């Protein structure tokens, strides 16, 4: 795009170096029994952000692995109490009131939901505070508690409206986050209104609406209506992806920051193609080692699989098979990570980066840095709850 005063964004990341990095990080994480994951995530973030170059200058991730570990340790101190005592009391309550142990797991999971949104907000704050462009940091003002309250408030309204008001929730939550985001001294503002997202939501609404009607008819009067269920189901699923990308585009195009603006031209169809073909390629690529695993299991002596035999007695043949199974098992995990990054995550980032343009850059000299060195260990809860596994 050659609008004066606008910066197109280049994406310089290549699949091969990323695949090598992911493999290296995966091996080190396995070898360190998971401890390296803090440094591994740091390296991946550094790589991905450095691949994005608005106006030719890369984003720079300055977070560190040790601060992630520190955040994780702090979160462990608190979560250990929460998970231990609360789970135990929930188990006791669901046993003594309903005599149903499974209910305790459901309740315990539900108890983590607010914590999850809290952690998401803090993780975003941490990521932004550790990201620089042209030497200036981003910043997300504190507000994780308010965010959780809004998630529940807007979520309740969405549920009460049977999902029709979903775009309202999307917009309000994004506005809450955006309006608290800064690039140096420049504060972002989410313009527009939630109604602008409504047309993009139509496919989800009609697809799922018709699917529900077909289901109701199939269950009551006309069993043949069940045949239409997959059609409406696919319509709704495509609608969800379409809505996610379209709403992102609409909201990005209505974001401003002290004269800076954004033009995003991401295409829902491209995103669907990337995810669709990427997943297909991953499945095909993973079927090969899985086939090998299957052969190994058929060749393994049956006593080994029963587990009741002394492991010393299985012999060299048995040990070789066992080793092969272990290597394939971990190899599958590593391959999954490498393929996911190379075939899905990287193409998606590339698409979003290349279709985004920053406008109004004449105002850049007005922006100065913030002094706040905030959110040092704020990512810890997210690390402990394993959020943000994408990178």
């Amino acid at each position, binding site marked *: 795009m050659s609008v004066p005063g606008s910066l197109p964004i280049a994406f*310089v*990341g*290549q699949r091969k*170096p*990323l695949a090598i990095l992911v493999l290296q990080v995966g091996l080190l994480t396995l070898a360190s*029994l*998971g401890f390296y*994951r803090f440094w591994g995530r740091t*390296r*991946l973030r*550094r*790589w991905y952000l*450095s691949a994005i*170059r608005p106006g030719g*200058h*890369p984003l*720079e991730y*300055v977070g*560190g692995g*040790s601060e992630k570990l*520190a955040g994780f*340790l*702090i979160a*462990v*101190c608190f*979560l*250990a*109490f929460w*998970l*231990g*005592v609360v*789970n*135990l*009391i929930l*188990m*006791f309550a669901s*046993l*003594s009131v309903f*005599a149903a*142990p499974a209910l*305790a797991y459901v309740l315990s999971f539900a108890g983590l939901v607010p914590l999850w949104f809290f952690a998401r907000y803090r993780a975003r704050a941490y990521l932004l505070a550790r990201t*620089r*462009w*042209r*030497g*200036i*940091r981003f910043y997300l003002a504190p507000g994780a508690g308010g965010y959780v309250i809004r998630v529940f408030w807007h979520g309740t309204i969405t549920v009460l409206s049977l999902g029709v008001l979903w775009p309202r929730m999307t917009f309000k939550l994004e506005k809450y986050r955006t309006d608290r985001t800064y*690039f*140096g001294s420049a504060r972002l503002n989410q313009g527009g209104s939630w109604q602008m997202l409504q047309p993009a939501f139509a496919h989800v609404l009609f697809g799922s609406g018709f699917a529900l009607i077909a289901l109701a008819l199939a269950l009551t009067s006309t069993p043949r209506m069940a045949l239409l269920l997959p059609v409406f189901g696919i319509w709704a699923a495509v609608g969800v992806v379409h809505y996610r990308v379209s709403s992102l585009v609409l909201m990005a195009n209505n974001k401003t920051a002290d004269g800076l603006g954004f033009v995003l031209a991401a295409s829902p169809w491209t995103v669907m193609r990337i995810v669709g073909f990427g997943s297909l390629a991953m499945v095909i690529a993973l079927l090969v080692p899985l086939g090998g695993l299957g052969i190994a299991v058929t060749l393994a002596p049956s006593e080994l699989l*029963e587990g*009741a*035999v*002394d*492991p010393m007695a299985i012999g060299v043949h048995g040990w070789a098979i066992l080793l092969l199974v272990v290597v394939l098992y971990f190899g599958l995990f590593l391959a999954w990570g490498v393929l996911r990054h190379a075939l899905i995550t990287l193409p998606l980032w590339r698409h979003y980066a290349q279709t985004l343009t920053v406008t109004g850059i004449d105002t*850049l*000299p007005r*922006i*100065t*840095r913030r002094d706040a060195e905030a959110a040092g260990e704020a990512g810890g809860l997210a690390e402990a709850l*394993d959020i943000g596994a994408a990178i």
Partner: protein
Amino acid sequence: MTERTIITVGTRLAPFASEGTYFDGIHPVERDVAVRFDEAAAGLIIDLGEGDTITWPFKALRRLPDQAGSGDIILAKAPWDDPACLLLPAADLRILRSRASGLDRGRPTQRRGRLAILGLAAVASVGLMLAVLIPLLADRLADILPAEGEVALGEATLEHVRSAFDDTGLGLLPVCEAEAGRAALGALESRLGAGTPVRLQVLDHPMVNAFALPGGLVVIFRGLFDVADTPEEVAAVLAHEIGHVAARDPTRIALRSAGSIGVLGLMFGDFAGGAMVLFLTERIISADYTQAAEAAADAYAHALLIEADLSPAALADLLERLLGDVGQAPPIVQHFLAHPAMADRIAAARAAVPEGFQARPALSPEDWAALLSICAEE
């Protein structure tokens, strides 16, 4: 990109000069700069133009790692608190490396001591939870848990055990229900007929094991019948497990596991997941009770056996045989038998036999044979 050639003449090096982009970290404004070496001051001179220069010492130069772009390198200045950065062509890397020895050194780990303290605090809080708080709370709650709740917990745990030990990994371990065998088992049960109601289940698995579950469920693996020589030995094991039921030990363990699962899942992060249910199952079946709980269950069993005209010495016989077989025993039994209190338990069982005690056979030979083939297909 321009090719650079370093020609060494005597001890003097060709002067280095390059161009790059500088960001001062205060305004997001790029400045085109010329850079050169000041060998005397051992620093990199960044010429901002109009006579403005900045010098970064060679030993403070750092390069950002893991960069996706290959055309350029990004330099920063140690100790990293200065937000300024400098982009240079990647071709300059070799000559920079010849001066800046710490170029590829990472960011120093901040506050190592604090990290160590946090690590200790995390380990301590997890340890406190697992070793003190959860057991304490579980013991209190086990005492006030209504009977229906215990039964439901026991049923759910039995399901876990049956699916965890199923060889196919898909179905449930079969329950042994040959009619004559069930009758023999029922006879043993009513002979022991204590004030504690129990429900006996035999599972078709070769492991030598028997354990109690919450709600009065006592589970025997077929493997026990394979090593037991007499019905008295089976009765002694049953009496011991009934002792655990009477003391509500399984409920305690199950509640403890419910509390521990979340904490352990947290520690192992993305590593475990489904393994936690297996862990719960393992805890229950390996019956890792305290020595005091084992001794109490034994004492209960001795009294119960004597009441039923059965000799507690049968328990000693069985344990001794298992000790003798330890070399060939499966690892889990080895672990069980390695318990230092084993010798004490054997001695206590022998000592519990009163002077001039007259025992009656636990089962007729026919019933004993029926019990041994309880898992046989009918």
